[in-house]
């Protein structure tokens, strides 16, 4: 009866991968000297007029198609009025009543392994808008410094329905969305540089009750902060309510240093944005042919690829989801399968998800920076699949490939003499030697200790320097132990 239900909706700002800004011809390149990419339009000098960037519209159409939303035939740009020095016009050009993308959904995979489950998160809308500049608060003798290079960058604000019920689900959604925008090439997803940032609307309620008062956590630019902020905020809300208290709808900031959220805007400042259609911009009409052109240019989408991996390669839903976490990962996996063979797909999946992933993680590298190419890994898996080497020796070969000790698995296997011993006479000799040298283990096994068997296998493998076919070794050992 003490149960609370957590309700979360996310608003995500994805900076679109356009070369120029949404309404001006200034560059969007990151890291330029302050205000050298702030054109008269971005500065809001008198007499200038915004002209919409076709590339930004293309990105929005592609996103709409990827989430199976309605791409609006007609959408309208409006002025969202507020005063802040990082927005020189005194308003942000955004979309309000008629956004370019309406509805849609994203299927997410939550949790790990067998406990994982799939969930559909509905999207409310996605709209085009311009970003604001940056305020720097340090070192200007009590003044704030304003850099307008970011002002006017194209953003797609993606709004979800309040469909998430835990911080874990919110993170899974944010990750799936992050993967998708990179997958379809509309956003570089660089969270440190602020290209992908989330606001989380969080409330709690008793199951079945109507929605509780929500607080919005602003500007979360890492998945870890997103999780920590939601966890702190929900604990705070539940404790406040259980203590008989209450709170008002508010905007809060998350402080990573303390792990706490704190209210940001007071009620007096409550925004009244006074949206109205921007008279500088006519309605945007998107013809059906344009939408079809974008549809044809889309790559195979994660959900379709996941289904194909399950049906073509016999992978589990979890494996398929893991391998389609990014386009790079999916491409690497498929290239590995091509270089080995489709029958070894499951083995390829394990090598990519376990061994390669662990190595990348340890060295803090992206899959594009892997020292072993998909062709090399495929060659390695092929040798495991055809019995040339065991899986354990495969790890040795993988390390050697990673260190650049050979151009392919075959070369390393030949050079280091790693070819598996499958000759039954040779294996029989190794087994006989091990039995003779370890009478203690033999009698323990006969007394019913299964562990003693593993010890004997270990002895044989050690004598064979790991190269004996493990299956043949255990079969022969069992046979000998039961007959002798």
């Amino acid at each position, binding site marked *: 009866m003490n149960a609370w239900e957590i309700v979360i909706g996310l608003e995500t700002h994805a900076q679109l991968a*356009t*070369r*120029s800004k949404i309404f*001006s*011809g*200034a*560059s969007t390149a990151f890291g*330029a*000297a*302050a*205000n*050298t*990419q*702030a*054109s*008269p339009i971005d*500065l809001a*000098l008198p007499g200038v007029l915004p*002209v*919409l*960037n*076709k*590339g*930004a*519209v293309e990105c929005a159409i592609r996103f709409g198609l990827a989430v199976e939303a309605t791409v609006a035939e007609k959408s*309208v740009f409006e002025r969202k*009025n507020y*005063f*802040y*020095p990082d927005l020189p016009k*005194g308003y942000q050009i955004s979309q309000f009543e*008629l956004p370019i993308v309406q509805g849609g959904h994203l299927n997410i995979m939550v949790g790990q392994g067998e406990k994982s489950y799939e969930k559909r998160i509905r999207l409310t809308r996605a709209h085009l808008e311009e970003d604001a500049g940056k*305020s*720097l*608060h340090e070192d*200007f003798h*009590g*003044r*704030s*410094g*304003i*850099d*307008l290079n970011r002002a006017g960058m194209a953003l797609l604000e993606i709004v979800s329905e309040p469909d998430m019920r835990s911080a874990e689900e919110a993170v899974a959604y944010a990750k799936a969305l992050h993967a998708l925008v990179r997958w379809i090439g509309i956003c570089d997803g660089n969270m440190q540089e602020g290209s992908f940032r989330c606001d989380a609307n969080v409330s709690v309620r008793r199951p079945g009750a109507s929605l509780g008062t929500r607080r919005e956590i602003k500007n979360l630019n890492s998945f870890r902060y997103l999780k920590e902020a939601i966890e702190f905020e929900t604990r705070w809300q539940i404790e406040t309510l259980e203590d008989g208290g209450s709170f008002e709808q508010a905007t809060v*900031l998350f402080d990573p240093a303390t792990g706490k959220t704190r209210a*940001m*805007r007071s009620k007096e400042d409550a925004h*009244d944005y*006074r949206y109205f*259609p921007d*008279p500088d*911009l*006519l*309605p*945007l*009409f998107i013809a059906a042919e344009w939408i079809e052109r974008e549809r044809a240019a889309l790559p195979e989408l994660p959900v379709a690829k996941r289904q194909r991996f399950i049906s073509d390669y016999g992978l589990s839903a979890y494996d398929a989801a893991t391998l389609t976490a990014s386009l790079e990962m999916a491409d690497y996996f498929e290239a590995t399968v091509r270089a080995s063979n489709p029958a070894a797909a499951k083995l390829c999946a394990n090598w990519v998800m376990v061994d390669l992933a662990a190595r990348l993680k340890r060295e803090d590298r992206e899959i594009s920076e892997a020292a072993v190419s998909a062709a090399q890994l495929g060659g390695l898996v092929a040798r495991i699949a055809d019995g040339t080497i065991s899986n354990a020796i495969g790890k040795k070969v993988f390390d050697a490939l990673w260190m650049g000790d050979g151009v392919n698995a075959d070369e390393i296997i030949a050079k280091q003499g790693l070819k598996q011993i499958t000759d039954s006479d040779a294996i029989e000799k190794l087994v006989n030697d091990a039995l003779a040298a370890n009478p203690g283990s033999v009698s323990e096994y006969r007394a019913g200790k299964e562990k003693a068997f593993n010890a004997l296998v270990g002895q044989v493998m050690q004598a064979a320097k790991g190269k004996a076919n493990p299956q043949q070794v255990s079969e022969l050992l069992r046979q000998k132990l039961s007959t002798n």
Partner: protein
Amino acid sequence: MSLTILEVERIARLARLEVTPAEVEISCQQLNGIFSLIEALKAVDTAGIEPMAHAQDACLRLRADEVIYRDEDGTARALFQSLAPEAENGLYLVPKVIE
């Protein structure tokens, strides 16, 4: 519909307009004059007519995604910042804003 003095003061605050009580009084009367015109317009039956987002019945023109504004050496920036009340190290300086 008509506006009250309080509403006019609030709109002025949101729009960062400094108005004297006398000006609020005059603005209130003038705005209400405009509202009476709107009342007349509202008498027209617009059922089934799609609202227009713009007075011109045309569609938006788009530009190609190309960088056409360049100021790598900061020449234009220096010019623009000469118009600003304060600038330093390429930044525009404003009264401290922090939340």
